[in-house]
């Protein structure tokens, strides 16, 4: 290896890691900062005000947390199941109109959710879905279905139908085949798909604003409101609160999938690369 390349390799990685981790620093600093003005590098005093804000019933942060969790979990479950069936259809079957179906199911990854939700909002109001958690769950399905479909179709594409055939030949009923042969094989991929759906729903702002608008407060909406106020301390604390559960969930999933993407998990991710 040339000297230049060696230098690049030596410096590159630390630089990368610094770049990735630095943006967390201001959140941590401002979350405990009282009276933290330019040009102070470190906060002059620390305050627990931001933290108290989290549990203060007046600020509705706990309500936001509850709404965010219920909605994101619901979306993860529903989208996961949707991905399970659609992924099977696309990954294991060839049929006419497959291209069209692929295009339709992928389109929401590409077309911004804002653009289509503006058009449909008045109907959400009309049919009583606006301002309800159900309405928000439904609208969150739009950006999540493409991802779960991508992941699951890739998983099913790499699933050898011979396993199912063998099981049937050996006398297993259709239920047993699914539950004892197919499901365990696709489960890691399903976990990844559901995780994607959870993350997307948890982080969603503009769709929740349009459909939930005021009545359904989720954590991103609350954070946006605090960012729009002069209270940086509260915004930083809420930002950290918004980040923590997904990180824990991601860590948990990684651990459950034995610490690193195994062949199934890798194929799930590679599913994203096979558009």
């Amino acid at each position, binding site marked *: 290896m040339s000297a230049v390349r060696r230098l690049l390799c030596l410096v*590159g*990685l630390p630089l*990368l*890691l610094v770049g*990735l981790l630095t*943006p967390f*620093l*201001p*959140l941590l600093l401002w979350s405990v900062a009282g009276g933290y003005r*330019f*040009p102070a*590098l470190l906060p002059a005093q620390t305050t627990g005000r931001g933290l108290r804000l989290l549990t203060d019933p007046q600020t509705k942060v706990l309500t936001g947390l509850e709404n965010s969790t219920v909605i994101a979990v619901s979306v993860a479950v529903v989208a996961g199941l*949707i991905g399970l*069936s*659609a992924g*099977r*259809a*696309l990954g294991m079957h060839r049929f006419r109109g*497959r*291209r069209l179906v*692929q*295009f*339709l*199911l*992928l*389109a929401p*990854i*590409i*077309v*911004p959710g804002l*653009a*289509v*939700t*503006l*058009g449909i909002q008045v*109907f959400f109001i009309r049919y009583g879905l606006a301002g309800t958690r159900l309405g928000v769950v*439904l609208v969150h*399905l739009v950006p999540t*279905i493409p991802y779960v*479909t*991508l992941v699951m*179709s890739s998983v*099913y*594409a790499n699933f050898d139908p011979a396993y199912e055939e063998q099981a049937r030949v050996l006398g297993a009923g259709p239920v047993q085949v699914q539950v004892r042969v197919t499901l365990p094989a696709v489960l890691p991929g399903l976990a990844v798909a559901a995780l994607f759906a959870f*993350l997307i729903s948890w*982080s969603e*702002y503009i769709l929740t604003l349009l459909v939930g608008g005021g009545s359904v407060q989720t954590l991103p909406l609350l954070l946006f409101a605090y*960012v729009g106020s002069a209270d940086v301390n509260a915004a930083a604390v809420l930002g950290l609160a*918004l*980040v923590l559960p*997904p990180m824990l*969930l991601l860590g948990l999933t990684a651990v459950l999938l034995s610490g*690193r*993407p195994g062949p199934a998990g890798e194929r799930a*991710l*590679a599913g*994203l*690369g*096979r*558009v």
Partner: protein
Amino acid sequence: MPLLLAPALLPIVVLFLGGFAFGVAQSLGYQPYLGSRPVSLAAYRALAGDPAVRAAVGLTFRIALVSTLVSAVLAVVSALLIRRTGRGRRLVTLLFQVNLPVPHLVGAVSMLLLLGQSGLLARLGHAVGLVRAPADFPALTADRFGVAIVAEYVWKEVPFIGVVVLAALTGAVAEIEDAARSLGAGPWQQFRHVTLPLITPAVLSTSVIVFAFTFGSYEVPVLLGRPFPATLPVVAYQSYVDVDLAARPQAMAIAVVITVLVGLLVLVYLRLSERWLGRGLGGRR
């Protein structure tokens, strides 16, 4: 077969296609529950003459393109660097993915606090004597080029693209590279003829996703950008919530324009990738 696809297609057709269709209808003047209105292209004509919209198209394209290119290049470089790591590779991979679950909204808040003129970097500059007052620090937020916006996108999307690239560079690739090396190929040739073709599909597909996302994102440019020029989604939302209901068809028109622009892109991409790479979604090789 259709039953398998029904749960997926139903929400997409009703909410996605329906939303788009009603957006088009409303952009042409149809206003539901308000009685019949004349149908016309007036909203689109108004868009063409609106300086905010004209400026928004250029700005949105610029930001999306720059973010995607920079993210893709940095992601490939990062993936290669990580692959080269011996000990501590698991830790490095873990750290590489640490910001994947971070919502873009939180990333935008971070960038505000980090890159603002009175933010952390500026204070660091003050500590080393380079910056005397906030105004001396370069304007990275609410600036003409959207530097902080691009920075936020790059920060989030490099690991996203990088992780997919890493997944494409499975163990088999190392064997092929070894084979190439034993046949006398130099490092650049290895990269060009072995590595690059293997990661190209992954990079291309994630890049399209990144481009589309950065094009249509709302919360990041509204927090890190300036009132004028703003990006298309920001202008669309502002027109939508304008109390003057006459602005509603214009808001829908902008939404339709966004959809068409991005939709055209993905169509072009799918055609090209089929011709060049010969593969579709999932499916066996």
